[in-house]
């Protein structure tokens, strides 16, 4: 085995900062984040322009009111959302589209589980705060589209204006981001023999399905 190819550089993500963009509404599902018709592709390249497509454009492709269309938010990288964001399908196309549009981090009331897991696999933090805090943050972002807010992952805080507020970062997510182990392929590959042992102990896994030791 050539190990240098496994050595993908995984940056530590201990903070994220940038100007914010508010995306309001509960239960924003993955079909709204990236409609399925844009998933007829074999790479994730170029998905950014289709983020929230049906909310941003009408049937004549004319722009509708949406923060992603507003000039003042074009450089924003921290999205502020409400509850159950990213519910629905497991499509990684959703966080990929947001990331390729320019989003590096998301603060929200709550996230659907698969969506949050997909974000983590891309090094995108999904941090949470209560409903009132999020609404205040959305209003602040609306009024200060050019000002930076900073998420400190380790300390679980968000600083904006003169305020620093507490937010929650899931334990495993925090460790994975801060220690730079959010891309788990190489880490898990290093346990190959333990994996083989687990497979051998399972009654339903046939010997022939278990690869030879390297």
């Amino acid at each position, binding site marked *: 085995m050539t190990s240098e190819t496994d050595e993908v550089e995984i940056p530590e993500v201990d903070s994220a900062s940038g100007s914010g963009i508010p995306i309001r509404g509960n239960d924003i599902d993955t079909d709204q984040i990236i409609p399925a018709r844009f998933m007829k592709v074999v790479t994730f390249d170029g998905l950014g322009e289709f983020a929230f497509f049906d909310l941003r454009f009408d049937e004549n492709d004319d722009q509708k009111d949406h923060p992603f269309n507003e000039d003042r938010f074009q450089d924003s990288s921290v999205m502020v959302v409400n509850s159950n964001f990213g519910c629905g399908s497991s499509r990684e196309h959703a966080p990929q589209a947001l990331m390729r549009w320019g989003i590096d981090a998301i603060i929200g009331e709550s996230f659907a589980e698969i969506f949050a897991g*997909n974000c983590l696999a891309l090094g995108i933090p999904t941090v949470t705060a209560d409903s009132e805090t999020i609404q205040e943050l959305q209003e602040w972002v609306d009024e200060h589209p050019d000002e930076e807010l900073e998420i400190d992952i380790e300390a679980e805080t968000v600083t904006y204006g003169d305020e620093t507020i507490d937010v929650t970062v899931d334990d*495993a997510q925090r*460790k994975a981001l801060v220690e730079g182990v959010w891309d*788990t392929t190489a880490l*898990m590959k290093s346990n190959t023999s*333990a994996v083989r042992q687990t497979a051998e102990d399972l009654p339903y896994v046939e010997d022939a399905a278990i*690869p030879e030791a390297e």
Partner: protein
Amino acid sequence: MSRGTLYDKVWDHHKVTTLPTGQDQLFVGLHLIHEVTSPQAFGMLRERDLEVAYPELTHATVDHIIPTADQSRPYEEEAAEEMMSELERNVREAGIEFSDPNSGDQGIVHVVGPEQGLTQPGKTIVCGDSHTSTHGAFGALAFGIGTSQIRDVLATGTLAFEKQKVRKIQVDGELGDGVEAKDVILEIISRLGTEGGVGYVYEYAGEAIESLGMEGRMSICNMSIEGGARAGYVNPDETTYEWLEETDYFQENPEKFEELKPYWESIRSDEDAEYDDIVRIDADELEPVVTWGTTPGQGIGISDPIPAPEDLAEDKQDTARRAQEHMRVEPGETMEGYDIDVAFLGSCTNARLPDLRRAAEIVEGREVHEDVRALVVPGSQRVQETAEKEGLKDVFEDAGFEWRNAGCSMCLGMNEDQLEGDEACASSSNRNFVGRQGSKDGRTVLMNPRMVAAAAITGEVSDVRDLKEVTTV
């Protein structure tokens, strides 16, 4: 923390180690792949010069983009052809078995796995598809994953995952006439909410669940994710074993059946298992459920009034208002009589043989309403073949339904089967999100397959119990 549940036991059997993040590294017993979410993962493997670690535990099919009318190659739509070709190349290079359309085994991934006996109790099963929870019906721990995680599973045979809590959903009593598994899960989601299950795995139990066949159990587990729960399962029992014994795998390896049965028995939740939460539902009280809104949690009994947004929990009011505007429904009305333009009988939730048989009973001798476009899309080529032999195709076609080839079809509109404009669709699928069925103005009403059949005939949302004496499933 739960203790002694199937979830705890299957987890322990598959745990390789605890990672520095605190997540567990879990061995994956079956990795199902399809054309939409896997090509990028294979691309990532190539970039890193990695190979598929456990090709024999990986199985592919094509379902999301496949046309259900003309399937001759190359597919008319270029993008679909490209995705199919990419999948063919990936499985060929990695030596992965592929239930392709020429095999007669192709179909929706969550129909194919169970019918071939790949889905078994006590396995960990993943797929880049949120409805992977379907396989929990067999007592497997099954959940959807994203593409980067597919890369992990392909490269290592494992997945980094955090253990969740277990909520037991005890459904006591008996389902009434015309009430089905689909109604049970729509009711559960409407009661617990679309995010009620976040952080939980659902264990479905109780008399009403145990008396369901495997297909009904699959319909329930399938929609766990619509309630926010990434996985749902039913403890394996004689119904499960009888089903398994008939599948390819155990027909070809009969000795395996006896060999594995003790393992299946051992992973059942203990009598004194501890749960993080228990919810009880009385099956006797249920009636056919239909959705009035744009999330699967916005469901009501067919004779119940559509709720006024201001009567809902505060955090649900805004979503409800927007949903009612989109659907053009008024609080206080029932959904009965809501005009429909399309009837879609298909999807990984409800396109298995018993679903089609029950719907055919309603359709037989009747005609599709003149204003309705109705289509049946069997869940797999095998379902299709058997249904055709049984004469179901004729029943549907004689009534005016289109009879199609297997695929995901209008559940998510990734092929040619899509709603147009603001068409309203009575659908046996799982999601009524805005835009889900291919038109952003389209309106989806979720319901059980017999209710879809009834709507196709009357041209409006109807109570199937008024249409015909029907038997309990």
